[in-house]
């Protein structure tokens, strides 16, 4: 009986494969096209924004972190367009320290004690809209541009 059913099913199954999965593929198509469009649009915006002057804000657990310079003044957020020489800053996250690298219009986490190293792998970020996250340390680096007010989310 089992054998009978199998032989009955096979040709029918092949014929109806597309028809049977029609709505599945429609759903897949809609989601794929929608997401890809958003992605392409965002990449286009990001490419346009690469020459903008950017500011980076280091947030610790949702609040702007106080990072003191040699005179005891808070220098966070960092105006990256006014930085001309490479510099490194060490900050203390929730679990480990992080070394943040700063250069003209770019920022990176150059070293971190976190297990995943996702923040380090993001590399140098030189345009707005691209955050660097180190969730292990509760650190979130937000990059914004003054001469570009409406940041779109894709």
């Amino acid at each position: 009986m089992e054998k009978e059913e199998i032989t009955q099913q096979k040709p029918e199954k092949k014929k109806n494969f597309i028809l049977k999965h029609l709505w599945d593929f429609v759903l897949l198509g809609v989601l794929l096209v929608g997401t890809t469009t958003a992605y392409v649009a965002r990449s286009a915006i990001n490419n346009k924004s690469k020459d903008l002057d950017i500011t980076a804000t280091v947030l610790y657990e949702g609040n702007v972190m106080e990072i003191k310079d040699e005179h005891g003044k808070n220098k966070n957020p960092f105006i990256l367009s006014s930085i001309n020489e490479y510099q490194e800053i060490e900050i203390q996250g929730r679990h480990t320290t992080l070394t943040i690298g700063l250069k003209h219009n770019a920022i990176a986490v150059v070293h971190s004690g976190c297990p995943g190293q996702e923040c380090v792998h993001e590399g140098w970020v030189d345009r707005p809209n691209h955050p660097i996250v180190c969730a292990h340390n509760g650190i979130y680096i937000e990059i914004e541009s003054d001469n570009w007010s409406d940041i779109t989310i894709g």
Partner: protein
Amino acid sequence: MIMKKKITIKQLTLLAMLLSLALVLSIAESFIPFGIPGLKLGLANMVILLAIYYFGFWMALAIDILRVIISSIAIGTFLAMGFWMSLAGATLSFFVMYVFYRWLKIFTPVGNSIAGAYTHALAQILVGVFYLGSWGVFYYFPVMAIASLITGTFNGFIVEMILKNKYLSTAVGYEKTTI
């Protein structure tokens, strides 16, 4: 139909097997990076979808939540951001897959899996937005969502194939009425 009066030994064995499989996949996918630690592809959704078909709402939900808790303890992210991301992703995608399974019969397990995968990605990102306090986290959404859609489609076809297995279906008392 959804819940039999008693769980047979075969069913119990299969439940345990599904939970361990879900655990293995959950832990394995924690090694695939997506920019934010804790963001996951949703490989284990395959097992959860199968559990929905085989065991219905409660058993599948139990496997789903247990695998999130146990795997996060194993990886060491329990109660950290990654944990909440996984929990939100797992439960929301579970409900979406269940709704698709129960009421949206125009979709096969493949469609259910696709919907679940997308929800899984979206829910995780929303937890990230909430946790880190910035919509900027959506930066990481598209790549993750597209990867999830591919995985979700693949998962769906696997589930469909497994559901056709007569031996397993008999063992769990699953009647092939919807497919």
